[in-house]
């Protein structure tokens, strides 16, 4: 039986009828399979949650120990059964603990890839190509204008700016989960070993990463700095929403740095008042999306989460059947960035 008959979209999320579970549901359900810890995928209040150990830890950090009645950590590449449905988790390369989910039923296989990327990321194992009949892909940056430069080039811009403006506090806007830690690691990789200062919202998740043996170097909460003037010439990382906030006014001579895949579009960067936009993303750019579809080589591509039109058009041109999976609660374009800050 074709997956379009047993997978369905409702206003909660993506539902597998024969397995009776949701993937990344937006409101509390009986059984939830969660691909990764970003708030537009992982919500609290489910009866049973199945996710990677890291994702469960992220959810507990965000929502508390009681975030779900029953929490089951899932090992990668180990099949689980829900009625007659076989489910297997694979790495997605998006953030710590991020997974794809392979669903097999009635002779068909569906891969829900969640959010994913193909670039090197020291915080998680790389995306794995899983052959399948239906490949469900995100489309956050699915326009040919999006080509993310190497992360080293972008970090070099930040370090160059620190050299040119040694008396300015470089306030870096980066989403607290994933982006923040990736920026810190890239700075360390580039040889920056000074302490990095953190907004309160970033601290818990950085500590969690450290618990998973990801070395982030010396991190100091801004709240523990008595004389804020000493932050001149230092790097402070805060959530993007704090950039224009009163909080940042105590920092000396701020230079606003914004880290996101959207920064490639200058008007977007301007809208965020970024003086130094850095293009760093945890999603695929256009060439990586096309590369992935080719490598997975499914018979059918379902597109969600972003600029579906362009990717559907291109996938059809490449000879695949393709259609939009209009997911309620996932329509990140309609919400602007305020809701989904992870990109």
């Amino acid at each position, binding site marked *: 039986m074709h997956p379009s008959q047993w997978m369905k979209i409702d206003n909660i999320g993506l539902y597998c009828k024969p397995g009776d579970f949701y993937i990344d549901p937006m409101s509390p359900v009986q059984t939830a399979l969660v691909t990764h810890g970003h708030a537009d995928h992982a919500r609290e209040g489910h009866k049973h949650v199945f996710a990677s150990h890291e994702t469960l830890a992220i959810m507990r950090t965000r929502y508390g120990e009681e975030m779900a009645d029953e929490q089951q950590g899932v090992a990668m590449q180990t099949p689980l059964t829900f009625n007659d449905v076989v489910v297997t988790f694979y790495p997605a390369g998006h953030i710590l603990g991020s997974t794809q989910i392979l669903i097999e039923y009635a002779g068909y296989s569906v891969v829900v890839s969640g959010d994913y990327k193909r670039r090197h990321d020291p915080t998680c194992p790389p995306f794995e190509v899983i052959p399948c009949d239906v490949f469900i892909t995100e489309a956050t940056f699915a326009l040919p*204008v999006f080509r993310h430069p190497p992360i080293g080039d972008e970090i070099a811009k930040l370090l160059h700016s620190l050299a040119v403006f040694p008396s300015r506090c470089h306030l870096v806007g980066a989403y607290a989960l994933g982006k923040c830690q990736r920026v810190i690691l890239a700075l360390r990789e580039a040889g920056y070993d000074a302490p990095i200062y953190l907004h309160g919202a970033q601290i818990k998740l950085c500590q969690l990463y450290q618990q998973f043996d990801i070395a982030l170097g010396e991190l100091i909460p801004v709240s523990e700095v008595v004389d804020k003037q000493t932050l001149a010439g230092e790097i402070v990382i805060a959530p993007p929403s704090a950039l224009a906030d009163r909080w940042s006014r105590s920092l000396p001579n701020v230079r606003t740095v914004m880290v996101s895949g959207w920064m490639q579009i200058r008007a977007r960067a301007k809208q965020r008042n*970024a003086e130094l936009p850095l293009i760093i993303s945890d999603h695929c750019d256009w060439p990586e999306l096309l590369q992935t579809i080719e490598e997975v080589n499914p018979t059918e591509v379902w597109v969600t989460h972003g*600029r579906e039109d362009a990717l559907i058009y291109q996938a059809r041109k490449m000879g695949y059947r393709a259609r939009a999976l209009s997911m309620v609660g996932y329509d990140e374009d309609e919400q602007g960035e305020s809701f989904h800050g992870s990109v």
Partner: protein
Amino acid sequence: MEAFSELLEQLYFTSGNNAKAALIKDYLASTPDPDRGWAVAAIAGALKFDFFKRNTVKKLITERVDGELFAMSYDYVGEVSETVAHLWPDYEPSVKLPALSEIIDDFMGVSRNKVSGTLANYLSIMTPAQRWALLKLGTRGLRIGVSARSIKQILADYGNKDISDIETLWHGVKPPYTNLLLWLEDKGPKPDISDVLTFHPVMLSHPIEEKHIDDFCPHLWQIENKYDGIRVQLACNTQKAESQKALFSRTGDDISHAFPDLLEAISGNLVLDGELLVMHKESIDTFNALQQRLNKKKPSNALMKTFPAGMIVYDALVIEGIDLTSLPLAERRKKLQDYLTQTEKGINPRLHLSTTLFAASADELRALHQKVCQNRAVEGLMLKRLDSYYVPGRPKGKWYKWKRDAFTVDAVMMYAQRGHGKRSSFYSDYTFGAWQDDTLLPIGKAYSGFTDDELKKLDNWVRRNAIGRFGPVREVKKELVLEVAFDAVHTSSRHKSGVALRFPRIHRIRWDKPASEADTLETIVSLIDT
């Protein structure tokens, strides 16, 4: 070219005029001639022609990139240059790009059929940021938040000179401004512009306030109609071996080519300030008529006959070669009147002296305003201090404009489109309609008049209430009433509704008002200019 692109990049993302000025001064100090002068010209909008057309750029990209994907990308990015800069498929980095001036020379020298190839070659050796700089330069579309006025101030600061010196020199010097820049650096003499017919920066007015009307004192003010045409400066010197004539717009653009009928009959050595209109002898035609003449590079004889250009002159900066700008208005007016009515050169069927009006008190002034506004060829009143010197810019307390109250109409939003530039990705352009029986007919489009906060709310409303899509255009539920302000209504055969609004803008958003209570087309038709 690298330095120019880097400068634009930094200017684009830097906010604050002082910081921008510092970047430009740094660039001027560290960049050789003639590159830096070309950069100044590009930023000031002083380049006289496009190096290539936007269509050339579109054609190049659609030969290389799938048309559908280009369209979707453009819709998202909101700007052709940036879309092309990112989408350009070829990149063979070169160790060093040619200098900005070499690239400009190349485009100025290349024959028309080779422009496209030249552009393609350059795009292929540049990074996206550099491509963007080249495309913006070549199509004269640089908008990096530095106005022509502020670049002059920056030049004055850079050279420690007075801004008025720069203003006066500006239209007498040409890019790449080598002599000007050398003078600024005290390395050369002040450029000599005595032989060049130049634009004199115009004097502008402030909107009048209630208190000014209350304090009105008849013997201090000259009162005139505010005409509904475009402000122009007529400069002419036919007493030289090579006679020169020019018609400038208020920003100094030379628009002579479009109005040969006006310039033809002018002679003398003078600079006049006034309003350009379509005039049938003494009688003034509508702005709509003038629009038939604007932006026509070469008007046909038939067009000039149907819509003859005339000028209502209200001030004189130079008459018979004598500079009058340091005389008070009352004296300038006297000399202008004598010249236009009593001299052989001045009496000209295309030039009309602006009528002065009289009011003896604040009340009479209000009554006068009401009266003139009934005439649709007039936009309101101008009040000018009789003792005012002719000072470029917008000096305080000298000249006031008192515009006719705008019309407003309650219309219903029908379609929305994403904006461009700063508003890219926001739905900021709205088409609105009025009722004819049970149907809404579109009557216009507005993309201004709201605050940034209101824009966010409107954008959000559009996204939540979209019901259809036609390319980049979203159709919305016919539920939101926009109170639209506009200056006039004309008949139009281009719109199904048969009307066109002049300068429509969103006055208020009527979240409270049901769409069924919006205005009818009939109401709007009744306001048509006659």
